[in-house]
């Protein structure tokens, strides 16, 4: 993709956020989709490309009354929407379609119309991980962290502090699920989930959705909102089993996806005004800061401790409060993208002054996949 050739012209979340027992998964997709269409001043008939994860693109298109000429159902976990943005940009640029709708909806808490995921005993995780008693992300996503702590010297306090700083951001966001300030002691004395992880180091489980509309930059000025330009994109996958990461203290998928996005955008790290790093657990921003190259190996805990990512810091991170405090439906990547769009548009509840470039970085599975999107206020 040529930097600045594609733009986001519509972006919205579901009308409600957090606890939405009166909407099914499918209707959460639709609610977000209709809100994004309204944001862009479009109707379903204007859309000729759809992409989604967690719901089939067939169901989504039919439900919304869209007849697409391009579809993408890439499903690699919570960063799937970053990959959809990247694929949609390529599709629009090559003429496969003109206007793409990407939707997410998930009834993570209320489980209305949600499918049950049953692990298969003959799958590779079914054979080589599940017999040892992992009970989902709280025991799988967290498994690499003791290795990281020993190798880098990260303390439990600095791990806990990630949640503390993000709660500060959430306190400024009226839609955040958790807004009351917390301390490192609060985090360390919250209920033990999977040592060394306490409850406040783990993400929320909530209901919600979000949607984006992309089109070519040369059309983008015709829409009601200022366009948010795509400057660079990246994606990768590493492994379906966290135990098989090449290095438990680094994400290969993060590094491949991030370096590709930065190279395409032609930017340096100090060009970035705002950063979103998918935080299903408190260590994710640490891995993200290091694997994206914002700080050196083992420096991320101190970087956050020294308030660089907090309000007034030189690199505000997870300004919606993140998966730890804002919301986490299960596939959080869409909410990171939404916050990047809001920050570049200048309309975020905790707005960072003068954001020209925002990076939105996602993870899928348990360090299984990654997608990175660089957005800009101006086309180069």
């Amino acid at each position, binding site marked *: 993709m040529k930097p600045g050739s594609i733009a986001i012209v519509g972006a919205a979340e579901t009308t409600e956020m957090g606890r939405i027992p009166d909407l099914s998964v499918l209707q959460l997709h639709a609610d977000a989709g209709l809100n994004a269409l309204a944001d862009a001043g479009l109707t379903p008939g204007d859309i000729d490309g759809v992409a989604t994860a967690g719901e089939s693109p067939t169901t989504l298109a039919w439900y919304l009354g869209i007849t697409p000429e391009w579809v993408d159902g890439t499903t690699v976990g919570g960063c799937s929407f970053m990959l959809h943005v990247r694929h949609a940009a390529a599709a629009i640029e090559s003429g496969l379609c003109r206007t793409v709708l990407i939707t997410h909806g998930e009834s993570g808490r209320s489980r209305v119309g949600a499918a049950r995921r049953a692990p*298969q*005993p003959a799958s590779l995780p079914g054979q080589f991980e599940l017999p040892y*008693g992992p009970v989902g992300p709280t025991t799988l996503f967290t498994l*690499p962290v003791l290795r990281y702590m*020993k190798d880098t010297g990260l303390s439990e306090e600095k791990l806990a502090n990630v949640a503390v700083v993000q709660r500060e951001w959430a306190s400024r966001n009226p839609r955040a699920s958790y807004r009351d300030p917390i301390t490192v002691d609060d985090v360390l004395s919250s209920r033990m989930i999977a*040592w060394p*992880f306490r409850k406040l180091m783990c993400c929320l489980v909530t209901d919600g959705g979000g949607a984006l509309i992309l089109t070519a930059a040369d059309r983008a000025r015709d829409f009601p909102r200022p366009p948010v330009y795509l400057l660079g994109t990246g994606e990768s996958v590493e492994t379906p089993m966290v*135990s098989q990461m090449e290095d438990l203290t680094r994400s290969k998928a993060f590094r491949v996806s991030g370096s590709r996005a930065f190279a395409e955008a032609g930017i340096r790290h100090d060009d970035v005004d705002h950063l979103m790093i998918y935080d299903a657990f408190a260590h994710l921003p640490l891995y993200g800061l290091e694997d994206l190259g914002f700080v050196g190996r083992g420096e991320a805990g101190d970087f956050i401790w020294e308030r660089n990512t907090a309000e007034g810091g030189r690199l505000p991170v997870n300004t919606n409060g993140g998966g730890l405090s804002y919301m986490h439906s299960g596939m959080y990547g869409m909410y990171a993208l939404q916050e990047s769009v809001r920050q570049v548009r200048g309309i975020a509840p905790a707005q960072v002054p003068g954001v020209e470039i925002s990076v939105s970085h996602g993870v899928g599975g348990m360090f299984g996949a990654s997608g990175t999107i660089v957005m800009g206020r101006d086309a180069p």
Partner: protein
Amino acid sequence: MTEARRPLPQATPETAHFWAGAREGELRLQRCDDCGHVYFPPRPFCPSCGSRSVRVFAASGRATLHSYVINHRPAPGFEAPYAIAVVELAEGPRMMTNIVDCPQTPEALVLDMALEVVFTPAGEDLCLPHFRPVDAEGKESRS
């Protein structure tokens, strides 16, 4: 009794040798004839160079404790708190496992401690590879 509800593996043709080995008290890995790469989990080709010329061999069973969590929430077939670990085998590959014959505490579970494989019956014709601490000389430390 709780063991019956633990999720159990189901072998595929590509992994059958591993589970047969576990039943026979052998931890089986694979080595590429062409590039020498030793790998796990099983597959009938080398994930490093793509060669189909690979062979199964019995690993030493020695390993070190690479990382873990101690789960405090209920899980079918397990009594919390219990550790879920990643061990690094002497031959190089890593695998998920449980640590047995050892208190499931941060004080007892020390990263990089020496371990050896043991095979725990876990159902009809099925044994799971688990690991237990050994002292520096390779003898079981808690007999």
